């Protein structure tokens, strides 16, 4: 009767259990379900062994192009992952546990997440972090909702230079609420500060910006933060954690809430997930934070330990009055982020950030030598930059895909009138030879 070897009972054990329950068949356990509610059909294919399963999965993976040369980003980045990240996060004691509701037998997860929160605070220059959100886009949405709660206002201003997917996620989260969302179209790849100044008034809960922005441009928001704070509004910045190895931190700029996607910190591309979202804020906002938060405390003997804290914010206590609906988060991915950051370490992260920028600057200089191609000069960039091509970027990108090169993200889909623009990403994994190959292929594509 048993087709599933993960269910260990022998027929004898099943009979014994049934007799203790006082029934004669497993089917009797389902007697409470009226016949008219029973499934009329169940058409899944028959089961197979784990070996056949793995072969099927290999065949599926084999249908993707596997040796694509990535010069694309869009929020997910092809970075190095130290081998220790897989091995340590792959300890079953971490990955087959669940939310640490019982702290005494979950100190491993709890301490690791406390250390993760610390790493996020130190990276962003802010005071408090939670134990992870879902991804970068949902983190933007959670930060916006947090600002609505903190200020009691109902207007959010979004810089159009923020990742278009994250902007869409934010709008989807808020579409059924009575919230006014205003988007400022980019001005030459940067925040249109004059437009923002005109809009900034006492109804604004928060302004959302991104650094580096979707075009790759680096900005400095210290003055902007002061201007926003003068209206008692909050500044939310979405940031790219690898860039924080060298770039001014949100905390140093006066940002109130920093968010971002943690994929670049030790999580594989994995066709878009799982990664994790991070959120950090000034301490005064801690009771308005979404999600799980780990806090330090002691036991009766004074031994240090860690617990889920401020749970009165959460859905399992507060139900509809909770600060968010989050239950499962992306804990294991956050753990990977911590192991990654601890592996590269203090000086390693700065070196990695510099390496990213050096490679991107090299690519930028080579690409700007292609006849007819213009690279936006004057605005500093990190590991992504925008180029203007003499023809549709869509055509160029699809031509290069045929040569196994993902040359960049064309902007036409995301910004009206930007059909000839391409955002190119160069991480530390790209070699000079690979960059030269991109440049040569771009040149050939543009000559045809």
């Amino acid at each position, binding site marked *: 009767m048993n087709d599933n070897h993960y269910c260990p009972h022998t027929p004898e054990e099943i009979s014994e259990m049934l007799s203790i329950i006082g029934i004669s068949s497993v089917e009797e356990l389902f007697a409470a379900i009226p016949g008219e509610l029973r499934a009329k059909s169940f058409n899944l294919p028959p089961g197979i062994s784990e070996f056949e399963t793995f072969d099927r999965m290999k065949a599926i993976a084999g249908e993707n192009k596997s040796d694509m040369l990535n010069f694309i980003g869009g929020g997910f980045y092809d970075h190095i992952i130290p081998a220790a990240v897989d091995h340590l996060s792959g300890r079953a004691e971490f990955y087959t546990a669940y939310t640490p509701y019982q702290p005494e037998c979950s100190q491993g*997860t709890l301490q690791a997440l406390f250390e993760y929160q610390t790493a996020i605070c130190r990276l962003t220059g802010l005071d408090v972090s939670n134990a992870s959100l879902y991804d970068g886009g949902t983190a933007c949405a959670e930060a916006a909702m947090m600002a609505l709660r903190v200020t009691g206002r109902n207007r959010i201003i979004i810089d159009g230079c923020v990742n278009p997917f994250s902007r869409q996620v934010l709008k989807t989260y808020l579409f059924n609420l009575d919230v006014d969302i205003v988007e400022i179209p980019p001005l030459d790849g940067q925040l249109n500060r004059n437009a923002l100044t005109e809009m900034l008034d006492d109804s604004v809960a928060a302004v959302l910006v991104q650094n580096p922005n979707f075009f790759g441009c680096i900005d400095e928001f210290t003055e902007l933060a002061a201007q926003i704070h003068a209206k008692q509004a909050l500044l939310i910045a979405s940031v790219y954690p690898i860039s924080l190895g060298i770039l001014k931190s949100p905390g140093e700029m006066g940002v109130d809430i920093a968010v971002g996607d943690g994929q670049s910190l030790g999580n594989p591309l994995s066709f878009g997930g799982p990664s994790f979202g991070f959120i950090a804020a000034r301490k005064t906002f801690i009771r308005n934070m979404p999600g799980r938060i780990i806090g330090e405390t002691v036991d009766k003997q004074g031994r240090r330990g860690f617990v889920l804290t401020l749970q009165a914010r959460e859905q399992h206590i507060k139900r509809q009055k909770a600060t968010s609906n989050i239950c499962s988060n992306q804990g294991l991915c956050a753990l990977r982020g911590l192991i990654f950051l601890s592996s590269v370490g203090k000086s390693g992260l700065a070196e990695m950030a510099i390496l990213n920028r050096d490679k991107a600057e090299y690519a930028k200089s080579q690409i700007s030598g292609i006849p007819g191609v213009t690279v936006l000069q004057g605005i500093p960039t990190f590991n992504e930059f925008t180029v203007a091509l003499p023809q549709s970027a869509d055509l160029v990108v699809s031509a290069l895909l045929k040569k196994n090169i993902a040359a960049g993200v064309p902007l036409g889909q995301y910004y009206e009138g930007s059909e000839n623009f391409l955002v190119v990403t160069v991480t530390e994994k790209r070699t000079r030879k690979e960059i030269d190959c991109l440049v040569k292929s771009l040149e050939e594509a543009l000559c045809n």
Partner: protein
Amino acid sequence: MQLIYEQSVSGRRGVKLPASDVPSAACLPKNLLRSEAAGLPELSELDLVRHFTRLSRRNFSVDTNFYPLGSCSMKYNAKVLENSAALFAPFHPMTALLPGGEEYCQGTLGMLYDLGQLLTDITGMDEVTTQPLAGAHGEMTGILLISAYHRARGKKKKYVVVPDSSHGTNPASAAIAGYEIITVPTAPYGDMDLDLFRQAMNDEVAAVMMTCPNTLGLFNPHIKEISDIAHSHDALMYYDGANLNAIMGKVKPGDVGFDVIHVNLHKTFGTPHGGGGPGSGPVGVKKALAPFLPQPRIVMDDEGKFVMESVKSGTIGRTANFFGNFGVMAKAYAYIIMLGREGLINVSEQAVLNANYIKERLRDYYELPYDKTCMHECVFSASRQLEHGVHAIDISKFLIDRGYHPPTVYFPMIVKEAIMIEPTETESKATMDAFIEVMIEAAKTAESNPQALHEAPLTMPVGRLDETKAAREQNVCCAG
């Protein structure tokens, strides 16, 4: 145990980066740079490995301990699933969104499409989005879809109805999606009170959110009647799939009147819980809600190729940046094809058998507030033990000392001193028998020596922790 930051030594490093093969770029202007490097740990790879290995040993987990955490389906996570997901690590999601890029991602796009097909058969729904990243994220997505459906018909509607036994995420998700909550009490027979439900319903109700079997582990035989009443008010029925492990192949939520469902791949479909996540919460809908599903949507074209559907005007937009937690979905897909039709039926039958076995074996020792055949989990109350001053939490801590992860306690909130046990189908009779003996011992100790229970746990790296101090001091980040 020391924090990783306390082991840090300036100048030490865990990993060597590749050497640069390009010229150094000119420095960025100083005003764009951080004033000092972020205070990340500095330690050798070996010290790093020992730190995290030691931390891991301070956890209970499914691979090391019986983990009957109710409502969480902590079943065994087959190792082949991990190997399967790792195959997809190198694929960049943007590739599929580039012009002509789908051609290079037929494997991953096809798998997502097929997973959707399998889930429609399991749940009785018509269309699936794989974008939601967790169960609660699926709930929010589902309620936003319901909102879009009503708005398209010229109504916004105001309320979402939930039973008082529901998961906390249900009212929280509906509130975040812009609805006020109406809570309907549970009747003495353990299901949502039908009369009070009828009274609560009105034409401003957008949706009724149900878990079936509910959090008491009981299947509601009136579910069709409830959905008929909801539909008569033009309200839609939402199915919280947290307890789907009980009914695979037995009942399809889509057949009994549900319009929207989320499934927790990390519960029902054997993917690990990761110490809190990642999960995955695909949402299934009936045809009438399909136009509102989030983008990007994967469809099969006339030639059998998997492509992005052109954006529909009614879509709610995007609930996550890409296609969802793909790695988790790869594991769930492998799980479903490996177990197949009969295997999934076995899952539900034996999950239910195991829960009823534990219920019968413990009924003489613990109060059973709703004494009926249960589904995949059973809910006791520690009310008898409370007479001796022993709470559900004390029993939990006793279990920890004996090497068992405690059941879910104090949930559902409608049961005083609730103890919610979900053994899952992957546990052997021997494991359950040993657990049962310890539960019986706890009940006896509650009578003979309650103090012993109050003092537990004694064998862990820490004893009971001062949660008030944690909440008051709010030390959530290591200073330095």
